[in-house]
């Protein structure tokens, strides 16, 4: 069989899936939980609690701060210690709510049973109802970017959704949280997919999984056949050839249904696809069927020098230090602590940064892996051009960003860059290509926005 993949560029980073076989453990409750108000793309959430307020697990502590925003719920029970600021993944102190943990008392509205709820048993679930429950549960994209899920489910009137694609690619090295979730919660994920299809008013669904996860492909193929046998849904598990950045939304759509999303501002639904991470599908199931807001997630804690790397079901707000300690503590010497994987993860300045909605992994790189090599002159080998999955010329974009030629940068489509890092990964001269491109892209996007505002 011809195994599908995306059509342009791509690389093969070393897998390093150390925790592939490690069953998910429930992480211990933290002593203090930290909830940054900006855990998603869009406006920060607005606090609705004050110092001294008592909260339960599942109590809303901050409401959506605008249309593109999402509410935040407490993952612990206890007392609000302060509404202040804390260092988040950006390295800056940002507004956050800090809660002292006392006991583990849940909101009564949450269904804590393990019983699998099916769509058949819930005829009240109209598309509008599902979207609303997803919205009020604060569900955002669980793959990292953190776009509010309900917005994706209500596409602009100019676009028509034709299918839902579940992103179960997990092409980032090291991370195995999605894989473990699939192995342990397959039925729930499929109900989640059904809910997403109802909400998007489509009957076609795909689950894209890379071939390095044969167990997940086999399990979900079997479960799909059972779950959707006598329905009018067409759901298919699509095995994908291992290649980074296949988990990028545009690459995944290209790989699964062979349609290319045009340059920004176009989004996948412009070619008929709604892409949701497999973790999001699970969160949607819990939000809709169990009335459980988004406050815990599957996260991989990993690193070659970590004593006991593992997969955890973590309450959000748990400081990373707690998880690192649970895995045997930080390795000796200088390390690089990442929220996410080595390709797109953010290097953190503090181990007290909490797990947020989008934190799929805590990755610790040690020794040589943690450091960049000295950069050399560009030898114009063109390997970055071959590696770029967006068909751009990274060497050129980096150069014109360096000399601040913003007009040329815009002409060369710098805003199409998805910041996947394939160019820099490939560069034999170890040039900081993406550093420069990122700066150029941000500047050009600013110029485009201010031009639009003037009109």
């Amino acid at each position, binding site marked *: 069989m011809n195994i599908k993949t995306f059509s342009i560029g791509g690389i093969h*980073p*070393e897998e390093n899936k150390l925790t592939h076989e490690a069953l998910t453990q429930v992480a211990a409750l933290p002593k203090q939980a930290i909830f940054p108000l900006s855990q998603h793309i869009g406006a920060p959430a607005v606090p609705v609690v004050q110092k001294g307020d008592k909260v339960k697990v599942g109590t809303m502590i901050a409401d959506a701060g605008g249309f593109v925003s999402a509410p935040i719920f407490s993952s612990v029970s206890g007392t609000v210690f302060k509404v202040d600021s804390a260092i988040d993944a950006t*390295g800056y102190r940002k507004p956050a709510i800090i809660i002292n943990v006392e006991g583990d008392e849940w909101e009564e509205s949450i269904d804590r049973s393990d019983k699998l709820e099916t769509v058949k048993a819930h005829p009240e679930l109209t598309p509008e109802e599902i979207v609303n429950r997803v919205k009020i549960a604060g569900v955002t994209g669980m793959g990292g970017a953190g776009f509010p899920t309900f917005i994706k489910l209500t596409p602009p009137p100019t676009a028509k959704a034709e299918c839902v694609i579940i992103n179960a690619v997990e092409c980032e*090295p090291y991370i195995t949280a999605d894989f473990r979730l699939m192995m342990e919660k397959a039925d729930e994920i499929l109900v989640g997919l059904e809910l997403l299809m109802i909400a998007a008013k489509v009957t076609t669904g795909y689950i894209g999984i890379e071939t390095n996860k044969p167990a997940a492909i086999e399990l979900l193929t079997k479960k799909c056949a059972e779950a959707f046998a006598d329905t009018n849904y067409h759901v298919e598990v699509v095995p994908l050839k291992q290649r980074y950045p296949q988990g990028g939304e*545009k690459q995944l759509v*290209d790989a699964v249904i062979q349609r*290319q*999303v*045009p*340059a920004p501002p176009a989004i996948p639904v412009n070619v008929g696809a709604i892409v949701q991470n497999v973790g999001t599908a699970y969160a949607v199931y819990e939000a809709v069927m169990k009335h459980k807001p988004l406050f815990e997630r599957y996260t991989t804690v990993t690193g070659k020098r970590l004593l006991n790397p593992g997969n955890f079901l973590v309450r959000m707000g748990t400081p990373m230090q707690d998880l690192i300690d649970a895995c045997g503590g*930080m390795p*000796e*010497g*200088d*390390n*690089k602590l990442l929220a*996410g994987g*080595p*390709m*797109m*993860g953010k*290097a*953190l*300045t503090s181990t007290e940064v909490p797990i947020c909605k989008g934190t799929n992994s805590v990755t610790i790189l040690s020794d040589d*892996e*943690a*450091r*960049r090599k000295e950069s*050399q*002159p*560009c*030898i*114009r*080998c063109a*390997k970055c*051009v071959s590696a*770029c*999955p*967006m*068909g*751009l010329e990274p*060497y*050129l974009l980096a150069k014109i960003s360096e000399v601040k030629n913003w007009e040329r940068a815009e002409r*060369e*489509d710098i805003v*199409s860059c998805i*910041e*996947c*890092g*394939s160019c*820099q*990964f*490939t*560069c*034999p*001269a170890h040039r*900081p290509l*993406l*550093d420069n491109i*990122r700066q150029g892209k941000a500047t050009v996007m600013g110029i485009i926005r201010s031009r639009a505002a003037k009109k």
Partner: protein
Amino acid sequence: MGKLIVSLSPHAHGNDSVERNMYGVIIALMPALLVSFYFFGLGSVVVTATSVAACVFFEWAISKYILKQQRNTVLDGSAILTGLLLAFNLPSNLPVWIIIIGALFAIGVAKMTFGGLGNNLFNPALVGRAALLVAFPAQMTTWPKVGQLGSYLDAETGATPLAVMKEAIKSGDPMVLNDLPSSLNLFLGNHPDGAGAMGEICALALIIGLIFMLWRKIITWHIPVSIIATVFVCAALLHMANPVYADPVSVILSGGLMLGAIFMATDYVTSPMTPKGQLIYGVAIGLLTVIIRNWGAYPEGMSFAILIMNAFTPLINNYVKPKRFGEVPAKK
């Protein structure tokens, strides 16, 4: 606890390096180098050693004393590579002092003047060769015959296959072409009367190098294949039109075509950055080679064709863009 290291993503690297690529090309040149030792013996050893040593010396000296670079580029392998490629383009009976002048032109003029590795417009080894060809036309156009293992400056010279082809065109007599070695001998380099530059004598050894470089993903197929295919097609058409033009198989196996297409035109720094651009570049080199070989003053046009197209590389890079992801064809 140690420090936390912070930098922007990506935090992983594919472990490719400038050195890996440069030394990879050098390894790919080894079959051809061994063949040149086998056919040209002592002369070939002296010319190669001189050329490599001189190139490395000039790179080191200019980097250290003139450009005052903090990181001396002499160990990255690019100077060794230029030295080898320059030697491959020379006759094996060339005096040492001429080779040194060639190396000075290659490294000093063509490469370091522009700022060193990555900044030169023209292929350094070919600039070295072109400079010598202009300055020492007699020495640079007489080629030793193969099989004189013990000789260097005193080697007996002979007619190269390309000279035979040129003679056929000049005289208008296709019978002249009967002096050409068979295609198999051209492919193996195994022809007793054969003569030529050191590195170009055996197409097989060069093709082994090509396969190695493709396998190690050092280069892509676009440039070598487009050059060879263009020359082959043009030669076939000319041969059909008029038998004074040699048959296409002999044409692509003769002279510096394989060496140029596989190792010189594919030089990273001086060739275009996009696959489409590389195809345009390759086809243009092929056409220019055919024109110079058949109707120009010199029997071999490969090196000039590459140098001319080097000059067009920035222009090609400026106008030929890769197909963007999701690009919608412009509406008419």
